[in-house]
């Protein structure tokens, strides 16, 4: 199953939308896709929003990738917010007890409007 990524630069930050299953087969593509998205951004951004509404499945390889992204954002001072987690993805965060490590919002609107 393929994983697709689209990006949109908004006033509040860079929005990355993932579509598909994030497992061992597809999670390895995410860092490269993100690097490309960052390089193509036409303006600097202080926040990265990852919209997971199109992700119906994620396993620990997806979580590992998100943790790596969180660590990278920490180094660059970029705020990372996840939004619109499906029940399946929420289950994985719950099992991994990472709900409090990431900033998670029900929708992209709430993620982008919430202050620092």
């Amino acid at each position, binding site marked *: 199953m393929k994983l697709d990524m689209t990006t949109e630069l908004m006033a509040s930050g860079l929005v990355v939308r993932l579509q598909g299953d994030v*497992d*061992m*087969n597809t999670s390895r593509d995410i860092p490269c896709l993100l690097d490309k998205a960052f390089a193509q951004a036409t303006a600097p951004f202080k926040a990265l929003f990852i919209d997971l509404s199109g992700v119906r499945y994620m*396993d620990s390889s997806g979580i590992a990738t998100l*943790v790596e992204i969180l660590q990278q954002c920490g180094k660059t001072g970029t705020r990372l917010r996840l939004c619109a987690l499906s029940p399946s993805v929420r*289950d994985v965060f719950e*099992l991994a007890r990472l709900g409090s490590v990431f900033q998670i919002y029900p929708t992209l609107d709430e993620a982008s409007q919430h202050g620092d």
Partner: protein
Amino acid sequence: MIQTMTLVVPSHPRYLCVIRSALQPLLLDEGFSEKEARTIVLAIDEACSNIIKYAYEQDSSKTIAMTLHFGGETLTVELKDTGKKPDLAKITPRKLDEIRPGGLGTHFISSVFDTVTYDTSGAEGTLLTLIKLKPAAEPGRLPHET
């Protein structure tokens, strides 16, 4: 009546979605709730990923055989590989207070299943047996309740 189903897939990550797709409807039919079915699928996906990574070291020319035994009071899943045998002393879930990528698969497996057994006594490979009590078998519990 206990029924058995075996699915054999190549040891390439692209087939993980095939395993997930085969499991989900069967688990719901067996009386697991949607949430339970999702976490069982996750745990089995993680176990198969571990076989690809560690038993086969990413060799996609091998196979993973998944056998399900269902219809009774428990769901039993057997995953058989013919790869490198693990050091059983090193298979322990890691501490979750360490925020780092990796190492969560074993934790998910042991969190979801009631019994997890690794049998490395065979001539080659490992037989991983995962057992979960079905919802109707839990005292005071109705089927489909989370």
